[in-house]
């Protein structure tokens, strides 16, 4: 059962452009929505996270937009750089103490110089 759907699977953006990755979830009990960045051969690292009581969170060039009614959230990378080339995962979890993250399928982002 796929509880978090992520799109697109792959994305190519020119340097300086905006990268946008979208996720949709089904479980209305989810209340924590992190994004992870993964480079080849490494484990995922937390990039930015949001709670459903806010509609947007920005950290530097990275912004999460959250639409609770639509059960969707997205990651925007402004002024995309070649160093941003990586695989990005959205995730979601409920606050049940076990912190069980459910991940999207991942998006392979390539930034062309």
């Amino acid at each position: 059962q796929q509880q978090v759907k992520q799109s697109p699977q792959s994305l190519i953006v020119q340097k300086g452009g905006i990268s946008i990755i979208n996720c949709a979830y089904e479980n209305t009990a989810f209340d924590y929505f992190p994004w992870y960045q993964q480079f080849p051969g490494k484990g995922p690292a937390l990039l930015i996270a949001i709670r459903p009581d806010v509609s947007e969170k920005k950290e530097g060039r990275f912004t999460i937009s959250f639409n609770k009614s639509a059960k969707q959230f997205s990651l925007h990378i402004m002024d995309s750089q070649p160093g941003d080339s990586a695989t990005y995962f959205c995730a979601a979890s409920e606050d049940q103490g076990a912190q069980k993250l459910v991940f999207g399928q991942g998006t392979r982002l390539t930034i062309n110089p």
Partner: protein
Amino acid sequence: SQTIHQWPATLVQPVGSPLSLECTVEGTSNPNLYWYRQAAGRGLQLLFYSIGIDQISSEVPQNLSASRPQDRQFILSSKKLLLSDSGFYLCAFGTGVYNSPLHFGNGTRLTVT
């Protein structure tokens, strides 16, 4: 600071052989511990999680088992590997604090031949 160590980085094992992957955490007490498996195009799948010693939950029925012999040690095992066990295995820890992130190790690339 909190750190997580996972080894080995790569492993090639024949079908039917046993498996033992180890993960240790430093800098925190009584962490939540997790084993995820990453398959191409399918995101990260939660295999096992533990919120304390002797408290291990399985998310997916399979050929694998997990143990937590010490507070900050988590082991993934198999008695007889299958070809379908090949993949990228990731250990992670969390503090159990509401809306806090999970931190991942650098993973083990397992190839069953």
